[in-house]
Structures are given as C-alpha cells and as structure tokens.
C-alpha cells in the first residue's frame, strides 16, 4: 500500500516534469528586431520623417524588397547608414559589402535614400543610422 502511493507520487512527478514548459527555440518570429536603429549622436540633429518599404516586381515573376527613408536635418552634419537584410528565418543575407554609406546634410534639408534587397528571399531589414567618427 505504502509502495503503491510512492509509485503514484513518482509517476505524477514525472508526468509534471514532462509537461514543464520547454525553452522555445529561437525562431524568426521570436526575434523582436527593430527595423530602424538611430544612434543618440545622430538623433539630436536629424529626424527620420519617412520609412517606406515595397516589393518591386521583377520580369521573372519574383519580387525584391526595396526600402526608402527620408531624413530631415535640424543642423549641418554627417551621418552614416547601412541596411542589413534578413531572410524569413531571420538569417542575414549578404549584399555587396559591410561598410556604411556616408552622407552630409545641410540645415533644413530633407534627403531621400533607397536601398534594394540583394535577393528575392529577403523579407525583413534593419536600417542603422550612426555618426561617422572622423
């Protein structure tokens, strides 16, 4: 009788352990990635007034992700920007290079920049604006 109770308790403990929440595998859906990242040094002199994206149709039937953003400068300054592209699994899709593109802005000027994904499998992106160090 005593053994029976122990076996039942042990079985219950095992069943409960089996039902315990497993840590979820990291998936693209689980990654909460910001599409726009602006460094504080840049934030004080520019404002991103637009951030648009669209899929442009290709003659072969595929579509490519294209983004466009607009920045308005509150004072003269330089900034550097880079877009990192991601596939549906959240993996980086390589473009031409890894360098930042540098731009100069005049007070009150609004400039528009576009970038096109390097491959049709790109579904997401991250735009990073930072201050060039030099």
């Amino acid at each position, binding site marked *: 009788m005593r053994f029976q109770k122990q076996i039942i308790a042990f079985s219950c403990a095992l069943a409960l352990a089996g039902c315990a929440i497993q840590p979820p595998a990291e998936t693209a859906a689980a990654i909460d990635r910001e599409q726009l990242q602006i460094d504080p040094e840049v934030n004080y002199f520019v404002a991103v007034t637009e951030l648009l994206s669209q899929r442009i149709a290709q*003659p072969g039937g595929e579509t490519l992700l294209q983004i466009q953003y607009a920045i308005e400068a509150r004072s003269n300054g330089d900034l550097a920007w880079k877009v990192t592209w991601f596939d549906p699994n959240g993996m980086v899709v390589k473009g*031409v*290079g890894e360098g930042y593109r540098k731009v100069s802005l005049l007070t009150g000027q609004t400039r528009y920049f576009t*970038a096109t994904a390097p491959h049709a499998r790109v579904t997401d992106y991250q735009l990073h604006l930072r201050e060039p160090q030099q």
Partner: protein
Amino acid sequence: MFKLPIVFCISMLMLAGCATPTRYIDPAADDGPVTMTMDYRDFEKAATEAVDDMLASGAVSKPNGERYIMVVSRVTNDTMQRIDTDQLTKKIRVALLRSGKVVTTTAVGLDGAEDEMSARVRELRDSEEFDQAGVQRKGTLIAPDLSLSGKILQRNHKAGKEQQVEYYIQLSLTDLATGLATWEVETPIIKRGPNDSVSW
C-alpha cells in the same frame, strides 16, 4: 665615449614604442581617414550603388526566371592611379551571383579567357591517358547574354587652397543579342583635401 650610442639606442627604442601599431581594419566599422586616392571604400560604394540599381531596374531578371550569363568586358582605368578594375567588377560579379539572377562566364574575354582551363581540358579529347567519359563534350560551353563594361575617370581641380579630385565610375550593361545598353550608371566620388596630398 659610450654615452652617445646609449642615448641613441634609448631614443630609437622610445620612438619605436610611440609608433602606431599595425592593426587589422574591419570594413564594417572603419572610420579611418579619407584618402585622396580611390580606396576600398570607394569601390564598395560604387559597387553597392551599381548592384542596387541593377537589381531594382529589372535589367538582370530574365522573364522566364532563368539566370543571365554575363561576361566582363573592358573597364578602362582613365585615372592617374594604378587601379586593378577587378576590385570593382569582382564585387559586382559576386553580388549578382548571390542574387541568383546572373552568372559570369570565365571561358571568354577580350584578352582571352579569364580561366583558360575551360579550353585546356577540351584538349584532352582523344587522349588515351584520360577516361573519355569524364572529358568535356563538344557544345557544352554557354555563350554570354550580357556584357559589363565601363570606365573610371579622374579630374583634378584647384579649389581655393585645396584641391578637388573627382572620380566618375561609369558602367554599362549591354544586351549582346541586340547590342543595346539595357542598364547604365554613373557614380561620382568627389574628394577635397589639402594641396600637399597626392591623388596618384
């Protein structure tokens, strides 16, 4: 008597200690000084803009979804620097290959094939030393559909107490069936710096 050499040695050691150490540069985080000559950042900028524009234009998307075959034609270096234009064209080729839309042939070129092995291995036909089952058959090489050509220009100007160096990277993509340039781009790279800096 030994004082002078000792002082000299100590001075040399101190100077060596103060010298900037050799270090690796990460292209993804390079905020180093700008040079008046064309450096890798300029080639990367030009290639990025070219590939961006080429993909967005649809000029390298075949209507049936297949890949185009591209050959790299002449890219003329009309600057005062000794530039290997492959620094530019290789980046474009790699990006286009990765895009899945274009593959470059190395079996044909203006100054002969880029990789002569495609022709050389065909010389193995009828050789008794080689298993003929593995030798490339006739009519397997694929002719290109597109040709990439271009020019890199340099213009120097005096701008007050400074000098201005202008580089123009011009690229064209020609449809070899029609001879028409179906895509073109010009990327200007303008630099201004002290007169004593050299741009060659």
